[in-house]
């Protein structure tokens, strides 16, 4: 538990009961103490319209039918539940994957992008703006917009454009305009700032398709609702295959959209441990990682009150992670709540640990996971060592094809040349 945020057992109990009974977000857009709507006044009417539109359309049968049809026929849902027999043998616990990497465009991001794009269409949006870190949300947004005939502009940090170059090309091929962001830290956070600036300039005609469970209310709720299909499917598939629930559920956490999607269905199952794995980067020092639940304290960033990596003056720290998708100094408010309520444990995995887990998974299971997902794999491995024979279910949030430039530089880098052999006969 973070030193700066302490809740009594009675408060934890109350928060968890409220979460399980669906009282969050409350009327003020809060998950307990976290969340809210901290945006310029210009965006207030747009967020109110979005909230009203979401509450009107999301529960409607015709909206749900259209979403289901697209998820089924275009995204490829339900995604598979896979047993990982060789990793299970190597790690000592029974490991299962929920295969979001098999979803169209290669990650869970499409669930949210498609849902929001359908909503945008119904709300009469003229254009879509999105931000992206690893590029997966950008690709998913570009694909959903192409499918629905909506113009799409994606903001992406210049550093991320370089390390996720294949995804930049994919977005452009699907007709999206990709705008490099050279201000700020040139990663996901700067891309969100720039997307917000774009939205502020045309709040009426533009729909901001936010990709993670962060930002001002109602985004954390909207994204969770659209991603919760991951956990709903996985829980039912697991029960069907195994006749019981897993002992523990794992997901990686950056902003936290795949994690909240995976966890939400399991939160009421109190016998199931839920464990989120953040990016531990190069270490525990400030600026060396992106683990806001592990090392942050409460503050306001990009519309939302949550746990942040910041200094004592409230300046946001630059983060460091090998995975662009986890490289964010904040986290969704519902994760901050689940930490406060003591329901979810949040740990971290370093860059090196994630790379090693990625290598193992690729060799033993024939699945090349995304670098983001590899953090969760390491968490599951660590847990397996302490829980031999138990069962773990992990959200395989995305595939690693997009990470090839990074993997070429790391796991595939040629070993340094051996020192030249001494020449026979030379003086020594």
């Amino acid at each position, binding site marked *: 538990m973070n030193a700066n945020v302490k809740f009594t057992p009675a408060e934890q109990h109350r928060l968890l009961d409220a979460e399980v009974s669906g009282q969050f977000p409350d009327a003020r857009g809060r998950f307990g103490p976290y969340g809210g709507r901290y945006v310029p006044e*210009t965006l207030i009417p747009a967020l109110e319209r979005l909230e009203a539109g979401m509450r009107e359309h999301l529960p409607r049968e015709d909206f749900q039918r259209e979403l289901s049809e697209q998820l089924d026929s275009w995204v490829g849902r339900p995604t598979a539940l896979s047993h990982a027999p060789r990793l299970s043998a190597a790690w000592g616990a029974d490991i299962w994957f929920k295969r979001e990497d098999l979803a169209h465009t290669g990650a869970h991001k499409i669930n949210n992008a498609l849902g929001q794009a359908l909503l945008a269409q119904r709300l009469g949006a003229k254009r879509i703006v999105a931000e992206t870190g690893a590029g997966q949300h950008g690709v998913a947004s570009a694909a959903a917009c192409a499918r629905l005939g909506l113009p799409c502009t994606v903001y992406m940090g210049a550093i991320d454009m370089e390390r996720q170059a294949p995804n930049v090309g994919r977005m452009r091929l699907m007709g999206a305009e990709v705008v490099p962001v050279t201000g700020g830290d040139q990663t996901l956070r700067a891309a969100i700032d720039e997307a917000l600036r774009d939205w502020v300039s045309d709040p009426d005609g533009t729909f901001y398709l936010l990709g993670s469970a962060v930002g001002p209310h109602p985004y954390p709720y909207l994204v969770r609702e659209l991603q919760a299909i991951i956990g709903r499917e996985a829980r039912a598939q697991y029960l069907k295959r195994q006749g019981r629930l897993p002992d523990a559920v794992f997901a990686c956490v950056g902003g936290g959209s795949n994690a909240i999607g995976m966890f939400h269905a399991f939160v009421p199952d109190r016998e199931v441990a839920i464990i989120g794995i953040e990016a531990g980067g190069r270490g525990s020092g400030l600026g060396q990682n992106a683990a806001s639940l592990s090392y942050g304290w409460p503050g306001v960033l990009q519309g939302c009150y949550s746990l942040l990596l910041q200094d004592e003056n*409230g300046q946001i720290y630059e983060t460091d992670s090998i995975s662009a998708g986890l490289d964010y100094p904040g986290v969704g408010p519902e994760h901050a709540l689940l930490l406060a309520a003591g329901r979810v444990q949040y740990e971290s995995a370093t860059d090196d640990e994630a790379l090693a887990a990625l290598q193992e998974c690729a060799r033993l299971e024939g699945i090349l996971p995304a670098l983001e997902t590899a953090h969760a794999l390491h968490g599951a491995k660590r847990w397996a060592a302490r829980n031999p024979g138990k069962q773990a279910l992990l959200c395989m949030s995305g595939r690693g094809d997009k990470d090839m430039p990074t993997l070429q530089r790391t796991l595939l880098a040629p070993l340094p040349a051996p020192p030249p052999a001494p020449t026979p006969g030379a003086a020594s």
Partner: protein
Amino acid sequence: MKPHDRLSAAIRTAAARGEPALVAFMTAGFPSAPKFREHLLAVAAGADVVEIGVPFTDPMADGMTIQRSIQGALKQGVSLRWILAELGAMQRPAAPLVLMSYLNPLLQYGYEKLAADAAAAGVCGFIVPDLPFDEGDDLRTALQKAGVALVQMVTPVTTPARLAQVCAASEGFVYAVTMTGTTGKSVEVPDSVLEYLARVRAASPVPVCAGFGIRSAAQVARLRGTVEGVVVGSALVEVLERGEDPTAWLKGLRQG
């Protein structure tokens, strides 16, 4: 006189002379932290109110100029603590001072301490671009105890019902954003903006100052009579950045 009354009075006094009051924005410590006091006095000599920007790493409502100035200030280690210490240690100008800050630096400072320290440093009010009216109760209550204003912003897309509510809660003045978008883009002032500003003025018990995109004497002249004050930001930051005389530049704005 309470600090927030000083702020309103300074704007009304200037407006009574027949020109909109000039609310002049500068980022604290930009272009130079050691010259902060000197720049502040020079800006104050040409303005009726000085708005001092507290740097923050994620200025989502600001355009390129102010983003650049904030990065420059952060690189020199400028913080809210530093700004309040500088203000506390200097001979302060007659023009009332307002701090413009995103919420997180204020939140981390602590609202009670902030209200007391700001009042002691001669700060009359706060403008917080990412704190909409609905989330503002805690900060408003803390500042009120010290008589310091929480200036509310309204925009052309603010609904009539909300406009009345926000204006009623604003202290010092109401900051009427002239356009949707970020700071720094120059705008014409069409009739529709004048009509909007007149609506704000009718709804507001405190003076109304128009801001975003104001950088010329012609724009200031066009707003005369419609609002009590105008905010100039990015254009003044550029003047300071170029090493020009801010007092003379501000005086030039009044000769429209």
